[in-house]
């Protein structure tokens, strides 16, 4: 799975591309755990290019979010497509993961330093 990574201030922005399912979830999880608590004070995962996520992908997200909680690193997701948003609601993941419409909205809520860096990109 292709996952690009960008740094804005103290935030790391991950942008995975493609379906998150049985075959791609391990890479998705590794990419998040690599940055949570290691290289970012805030982690934002941009779902704009994810057309579908299965249960195993959601579990990977929860593992990363839990690790972030322990490390006091907030993890947020942004840019859910309509179908992926439905999966979040059906699975009730909308209650356990912070969801924002855009990267700007997430960074504004979580880190003014990162929000400024993102605005100046």
């Amino acid at each position: 799975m292709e996952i690009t990574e960008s740094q804005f201030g103290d935030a790391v922005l991950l942008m995975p591309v493609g379906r998150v399912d049985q075959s791609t979830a391990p890479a998705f999880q590794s990419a998040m755990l690599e940055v949570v608590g290691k290289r970012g004070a805030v982690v934002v995962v941009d779902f704009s290019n994810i057309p579908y996520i299965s249960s195993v992908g959601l579990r990977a997200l929860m593992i990363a979010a839990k690790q972030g909680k322990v490390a006091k690193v907030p993890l947020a997701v942004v840019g859910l497509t309509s179908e992926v948003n439905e999966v979040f609601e059906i699975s009730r993941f909308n209650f356990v993961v912070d969801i924002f419409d855009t990267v700007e909205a997430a960074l504004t809520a979580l880190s003014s330093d990162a929000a400024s860096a993102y605005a100046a990109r």
Partner: protein
Amino acid sequence: MLVRFWGTRGSLPTPLNAVAVREKIRRALKASVGQDLSTAERIEQFMDEKLEFAVAGAFGGNTSCVEIDGGGKQHILCDMGSGGREFGNAVMAQKYPHKDNVFNIFQSHPHWDHIMGFPFFVPAYIPGNKVIIYGCHDYLEEAYRRQHAEPGFPVPWAALAADIEFVALEPGKEYVVDGVTVRALKQYHSGDSYGYRFEKGGKSVVYSTDCEHKFESINPDYPFVDFLRGADLVIFDAMYSLADSISIKEDWGHSSNIIGVELAQMAGSKHLCMYHHEPNYDDAMISRILAETIRYEELSEEGESLHVSSAYDGREIVL
């Protein structure tokens, strides 16, 4: 085969109260405004076509009990939750000239909600009846007998006049009971539980309740996938949401609608029937979960389409 649901609620009986009934009536009356209800037929038609199930019906409040009717002379049941009382009453209320009043009960596990119907199962008190309780737990008989003792219940085991026998099953081994082939599979649940696959005449139904599926296990080689392979009907514990089942309710021994869809799709099953409903959910919430699960099946579908439904007390499914 015919499958009849006598009890579909998880954990403990969940009766409707007056407030819930009144709300159904209020919604039905509101929906009836402007409708032609001048005849009994039109009223039936209105209820069938204009009212959603959560208004016109109820998922029900009895705990686990499902009848597998293979057309034989004997009775086959899965679990003896509080739904077993109603099954027993139905047997007592009707004449079954073609039946020998042999009751074969396949026990998923002996947790209270799965055996609590037995003290109120009237046929067990009738001489001449035979009750055979099958299971894979070596303490199954002890669990059943313990219910019939003070201070919890005043009627002793000795008062049960039917011939009662316990039969230990070996998981994975095939047995034939009254013409129906059955095999058990061990499941992840506190104290273990066992699912059962019943087959007859080219039709198959899997009864799988009180089972949590760990993510580490879920792949095409997972034995449970083979257990569901091509099943015409999968009765599946979908008690929790996915988020709950892998966070605050992890290791509580139950599964979710999402995992049910994914496993049934992986196994090429035809019909997923959600079961063991969360007792904290009302009928509107169970209906909402059903609609969402049907949608998830559409979103995740890659091959053959899977029919998704919810069990309710009194439901019959013909295979």
